[in-house]
């Protein structure tokens, strides 16, 4: 067998106390496509960033064509003919495609020749590209094309694509795959990061699986099935011993019917999503990152305008039904809807980092009353109560929340949101980045709310947690509901399959 194009040996990278990658080994040969499979936070992107010169590994060796190399910057990576297509494109919006392609190169500046060379590369692999078109006029798939050509133009023969299909339509995905196959035939080594099993199976030669930063193993695609890969990816069921009570109420509290959301770039993020959240239960929402979870919660909270559907709230006090669609948070509050929301972005949305705990307590309540002035007495009492009850580790209630550790920030945020006695509580990734103790504290808080008759909506990424904490789980995939399962009986693999199943369905439709 020939020398591998790139080989990673025992790569380890830590950020502070978090181990992002631990002893990862990978081998990719020329003329081969390797998929890297793993759940969110399994360390795929970090690993690739080390190959492309964004991060520097703490330990381990990188070999290119059998020789050990040091990659300290994107420029180094170019020199070893490594090119990475980032999930968030690195393009200058007001520049044309050609401008972006030649940006930062050292060669002689000749746009005509450069455009011609770009067009040649495009033709060779079957791309369409208009070199003069501005990036801001392009669709997502066109932008991706520019990124790929940019990398090929720099002579890359080891290509890394970070979730390239996340933003593409099935047709665009198919087209991309045919391009990748042509590159493979051309002798390039290709690494593709994805969560989508059918893509892995249809495209790659080998699959490497990461789980929570650890390297699980590499298998030949021909020996793999969706089930075997899911097992490797999600691992054996781990018992977490989260308490779960039987729901004792069953009233519908929030009914979401057929909602659609198209973002400002014209991409459809939510597609005909329907489900019901009931009082006194925890409804889980599962899905790979970016399947529309954030937009779904923001839409319910009144932060983003929908293009279709309705959100019906059953008011337990009056028994009336209110449509919350396209109401502002203020209007929702005025309707008497006690909707609490723990957003994913804690310091950027849920809290104000530079304000102290007391002032953050007031975010929701400062407007109460006729007085011109804010009253800090109640917020102060609340802050102190939360610090005491939730064991927030802070010097004082007047410490800016930015100075607190992740877990304590989350306690402050969740504490505030449940202090208003909500009837609906939405929490997006509430335990992300938290240590075990803090995580359990949050689970217990959510359970308490459930027992108080609150309709809890929990967006999570850890399937074990979802299965043990929730009563029912809605699975989202690419903005659509692919299934609603009973968390008490569902299997982990079943969730894994539902989360990654868009493709087949669409292929069947197409």
């Amino acid at each position, binding site marked *: 067998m020939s020398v591998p194009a790139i080989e990673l040996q025992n790569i380890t990278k830590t950020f502070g106390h978090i181990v992002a990658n631990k002893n990862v080994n990978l081998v990719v040969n020329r003329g081969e496509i390797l998929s890297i499979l793993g759940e969110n936070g399994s360390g795929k992107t970090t690993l690739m960033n080390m190959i492309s010169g964004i991060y520097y590994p703490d*330990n381990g060796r990188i070999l290119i064509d059998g020789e050990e190399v040091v990659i300290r910057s994107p420029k180094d990576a170019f020199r070893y003919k490594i090119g990475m297509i980032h999930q968030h494109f690195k393009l200058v919006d007001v520049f044309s495609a050609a401008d972006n392609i030649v940006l930062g190169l050292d060669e002689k500046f000749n746009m005509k020749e450069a455009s011609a060379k770009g067009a040649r590369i495009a033709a060779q692999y079957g791309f369409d590209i208009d070199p003069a078109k501005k990036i801001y006029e392009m669709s997502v798939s066109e932008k991706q094309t520019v990124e790929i050509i940019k990398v090929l133009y720099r002579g890359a023969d080891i290509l890394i694509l970070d979730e390239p299909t996340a933003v593409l339509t099935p047709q665009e995905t198919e087209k991309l795959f045919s391009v990748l196959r042509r590159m493979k035939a051309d002798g390039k080594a290709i690494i593709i990061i994805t969560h989508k099993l059918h893509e892995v199976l249809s495209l790659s030669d080998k699959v490497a699986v990461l789980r929570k930063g650890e390297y699980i193993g590499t298998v030949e695609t021909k020996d793999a099935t969706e089930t075997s890969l899911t097992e490797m990816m999600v691992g054996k069921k781990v018992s977490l011993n989260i308490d779960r009570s039987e729901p004792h109420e069953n009233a519908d509290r929030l009914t979401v019917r057929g909602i659609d959301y198209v973002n400002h770039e014209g991409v459809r993020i939510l597609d005909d999503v329907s489900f019901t959240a009931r009082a006194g239960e925890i409804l889980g929402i599962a899905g790979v990152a970016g399947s529309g979870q954030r937009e779904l919660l923001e839409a319910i909270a009144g932060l983003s305008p929908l293009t279709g559907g309705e959100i019906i709230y059953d008011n337990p006090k009056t028994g009336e039904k209110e449509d919350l669609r396209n109401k502002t948070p203020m209007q929702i509050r005025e309707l008497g809807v006690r909707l609490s*929301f723990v957003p994913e972005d804690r310091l950027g949305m849920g809290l*104000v980092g530079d304000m102290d705990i007391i002032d953050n307590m007031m975010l929701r309540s400062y407007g109460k009353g006729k007085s011109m002035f804010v009253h800090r007495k109640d917020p102060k009492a609340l802050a102190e109560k939360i610090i005491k009850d939730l064991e927030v580790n802070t010097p004082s209630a007047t410490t800016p929340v930015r*100075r607190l550790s992740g877990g304590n920030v989350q306690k402050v945020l969740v504490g505030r949101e449940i202090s208003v006695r909500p009837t609906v509580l939405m929490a997006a990734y509430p335990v992300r980045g938290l240590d075990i103790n803090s995580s359990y504290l949050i689970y217990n808080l959510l359970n308490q709310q459930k027992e108080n008759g609150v309709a809890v909506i929990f967006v999570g990424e850890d399937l074990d947690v979802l299965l043990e904490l929730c009563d029912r789980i809605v699975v989202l995939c690419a903005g659509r509901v692919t299934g609603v399962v009973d968390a008490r009986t569902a299997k982990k693999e079943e969730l894994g399959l539902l989360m990654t199943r868009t493709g087949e369905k669409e292929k069947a439709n197409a």
Partner: protein
Amino acid sequence: MHKNENHVREPLFHIVKRAALPGWQSAAIRVLAVLISLIVCGIIIVLFTGENPINVYATMIKGAVGTNRRLWNLLQSVAILLCISLAVTPAFRMRFWNTGAEGQALIGGLATAACMIFFGGKMPTALLLIVTVVASVVAGAVWGLIPALFKAYWGTNETLFTLMMNYVAIQIVSFFTYRFSVPKGSGQIGIINRDTRAGWLPVIGNNYLLNILIVVVLTILIYIYLNYSKHGYEISVVGQSENTARYIGIDVKKVIIRTMLISGAICGLAGLLLVAGTDHTITRDTIAGRGFTAIMVSWMAKFNPIYMIITSFLICFMSKGSVEIATVFGFNDSFADIITGIIIFFIIGSEFFINYQIKRTHREGGKA
């Protein structure tokens, strides 16, 4: 501009963002920066004058607060500068870069002068004062409102817009100084209502005391407004994170417009204090760059009205002191601007050491 580097050298140092520095440490860094800047200024002064530094500083202190008159004069300058600094602060807290205080104050002053000229002697003193105050405050507010509207609805760059509005204001004032000039065509308004003193702010104790008292009260009011009112709270939220403002349902447009109305109104008040309080005339140079200095004063005080007392005092003190040095040693007054500039450079630069940390690069583990 960059050559093909074949060896990537690992830098000896790298910069990392600090999590947060305890309050006393960041205060210490700022104080240190001021001290170093004073030493540097001292060295420069000594280079120019050949005097020994102690004498130089003694001259400065004498110049700034040496006599009663000078002390009052200094306090009056501090009051006006502080007033304009207070005016820009609500906008800055909202991350709205109001560089138009100069124009907003000048338009306020123009409104004052116009009221004094047109209504002086035609209405009772009390009424005249009320009309004058209202007119100047409204004029300043309108001047602040215009860029705010465009920012709120179309995202027009507020730094550049407010900056341009200064010069529109200056030319308008120039226009009126010719129109109102006494004698006609002289291009100077001269002391308005010299004999009747109509529209002049009442004198308490001396010419300056009223202004100073007004600004003291204003400082307290703004401090309370920013820290204890609902509006102030909204301003902070919008300034820190528009996403959070959205999350809790604050109307960002409304906050921008309301805050700039207040910012402009206080500038208008500063114009009033200058024109009706001390100058009793108006020229295109009435504000004399204080609108710009105020931006630096407010920024150096981290937008805290109480700290602004210190920073505006520092700037005025150094400036008056340098003027004295200039007089004694036969320079011109502009020496003060050089000194002010240097001090501000040091204070601006010191922020870096509060927000960032320079670390020795460790060779990371593994073979490199």
